[in-house]
């Protein structure tokens, strides 16, 4: 007996997870991005052209229009601990209504800066919407209020959602969302430090640094979790044998050779394929939900040793492993 032809190949398929590219153009879908941008185009040009009398008239017009009022002090609803950065305020929980051109300008700048921070790759997003001297105090106020809102809102979630996020126990989509949130909060913090740096007391500056350290810690945890999830991959080995066998004794083979020599035999090629699926486990980067020792193959089945010819056909390589 003898095997007269065979080819053994091993096909190893590694399924890995990836994130789609960030599309920075999508910032234009945010309501307010285009609108506040256009508003500031007009207002900035106007500020360069008007004299004090005209500026006073503009203030009068804007202060007289209800729809242009802006409420501030919104972070108070999330504040659960004393802060040197915030004024101590024991009054009933309510916002403070502000009116004036400075508030209108400042709100547009803060909103626009936050959109750039959350949805573009600008290193210093708020620098792109830097205020004029005219509305600097209002801008600093809204910026600090924004920072405090995001920071305290995140802190309130320490024992709930954020805890799960930090541990990486949430779907990756949620991790991404929280990653953006922390990044946004840090952009606010950076802007506050830039704008108010000279006015902050040593204690206030220290508190700001503490906040930044805490946010940095959360951001690191989120990034690590995302990286672990993306690093997880499933590897599947498929062994293929292309072979042909002839059961023959030595006398028979010799007879074959004689027939070939005499020209009374023909030569054909014959092929048969069998597939062995050999799952080699799942590397998970420490975040696998699968029980240890129970690796799965590409088709999700445990084990995977099968009989040649009885396994399902190989999956489309573009299929998801899960």
């Amino acid at each position: 007996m003898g095997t007269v032809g065979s080819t053994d190949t091993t096909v190893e398929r590694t399924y890995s997870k990836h994130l789609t590219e960030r599309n920075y153009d999508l910032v234009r879908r945010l309501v307010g991005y285009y609108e506040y941008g256009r508003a500031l185009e007009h207002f900035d040009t106007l500020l360069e052209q008007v004299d004090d009398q005209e500026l006073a008239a503009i203030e009068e017009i804007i202060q007289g229009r209800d729809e242009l009022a802006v409420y501030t002090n919104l972070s108070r609803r999330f504040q659960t601990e004393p802060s040197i950065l915030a004024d101590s305020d024991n009054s009933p929980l309510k916002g403070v209504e502000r009116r004036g051109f400075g508030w209108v300008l400042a709100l547009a700048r803060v909103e626009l800066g936050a959109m750039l921070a959350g949805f573009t790759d600008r290193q210093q997003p708020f620098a792109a919407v830097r205020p004029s001297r005219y509305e600097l105090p209002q801008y600093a106020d809204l910026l600090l209020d924004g920072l405090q809102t995001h920071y305290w809102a995140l802190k309130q979630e320490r024992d709930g959602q954020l805890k799960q996020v930090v541990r990486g126990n949430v779907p990756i989509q949620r991790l991404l969302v929280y990653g953006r949130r922390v990044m946004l909060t840090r952009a606010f913090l950076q802007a506050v430090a830039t704008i108010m740096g000279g006015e902050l007391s040593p204690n206030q500056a220290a508190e700001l640094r503490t906040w930044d350290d805490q946010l940095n810690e959360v951001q690191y945890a989120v990034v690590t979790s995302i990286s672990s999830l993306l690093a997880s991959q499933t590897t599947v080995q498929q062994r293929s044998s292309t072979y042909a066998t002839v059961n023959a004794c030595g006398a028979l083979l010799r007879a074959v050779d004689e027939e070939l020599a005499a020209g009374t035999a023909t030569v054909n090629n014959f092929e048969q394929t069998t597939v062995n699926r050999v799952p080699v486990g799942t590397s998970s980067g420490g975040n696998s939900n699968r029980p240890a020792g129970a690796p799965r193959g590409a088709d999700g089945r445990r084990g995977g040793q099968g009989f040649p010819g009885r396994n399902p056909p190989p999956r489309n390589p573009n299929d998801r492993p899960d």
Partner: protein
Amino acid sequence: MLSRASLSLALMMLTALSASDVSAAALSRGQRATILDQLIPAYQQGDSLAVVRVSGPLSRRLNTARVEAIDALLKQHDAPPLGTLMAEARLALTDQDGVSNSPQPNPVEIKLIVPALYTRVLKIIEWAEKHAVMAEPMPAARDFDEFELTLWNTHVLQNQLEATGRLTELIAGWAEKLPPRMLEDLDAEQAIAFRADYEELLARFDLLSHEVQQRDTEIRIRRLEFAAGILAESKNKKERFVAAFALDLDARVIDAFFVDVAEGDIKPVTRERLQDPELAGHLQQIANQGRAHAGDLVSKAQLLFKGIHWWTRGRYGSGPDGWGLLKSMESLKSESDQFSLYMPTETPIPTDPLAGGESVPEYDRRHHYTWGWEDRRIYSAVNTNTTVVSKKNTTVYSMSKFY
């Protein structure tokens, strides 16, 4: 006007009514994949068009149990029930210009959507015909605030008429597509909607719209005259700012209106004041005088009020997607596509966000909410590595006789 909530409810019923096989509760692997890989990401990205494209085929053969299973799966991913998803998406596409790209609703959807939207159309017509702007004589304004309010109301009315006119054309097309066998199963209310004379409805929209355009022009003529008087006499800077802006704007809008009439883009005027042959010369003269009195205040006033206009849109505007925080995907096509937003029909008065209750504007700060929008997705890639372990001659001997 039919609310989004009631339409959502109707569509939730749609999915329940489409039950044909109550036995199969579990979702198939394909359905599950469609929901997880397509529907939920589309919802999370606030992409109404994708939601319609995915949910339409998905809803076609669903039974009650499967709808419940889908709703449970959606809930696990912080998404609303399927019916709500479909209703919101379809309505968003109807209200924006993305309708042409969206798939046609299937017959079951048509059966429920058309009557609901037909009711909405009738209510808009009734509202328009009784609107204060349509009163005779026209309401008189005594100061710029009153002029502004009247013109704003006219603008809102005109927009509603145009949008509802487009909606009516759409409904008319859908109504024709209902299969005859389903026409026999309509209840009384549904039957009215499917047998309505949509040509007659569209003609009513044209008539109303033309009348509103003329009234808008007439109000602007009055304001132009009023503003010219202020610029000639008043020393008050605030008043002069407002007058300079109003005069320049109205002069241009009125001029454009008459050009459109002359070129046939707008039907001939029917209102008496607008038919006066001396009107054009009179308006030109007072506009020129007003601009001369205003000087550079015209350009400064434009910067101020255009800036306020854009700021107000940023503050109070609402997009069709992502709970109002997002514009449609169509908006990325061009700058002009960036413009479409839902705006409040009345001048909003902001409320204290800490006071509780309904908040005006809807989002006290947009940055408090937009961080929750994630547009990125996970995808899997496969890397294939083939190794030849061994290779031998594959020739087989086939012989002519058996040994």
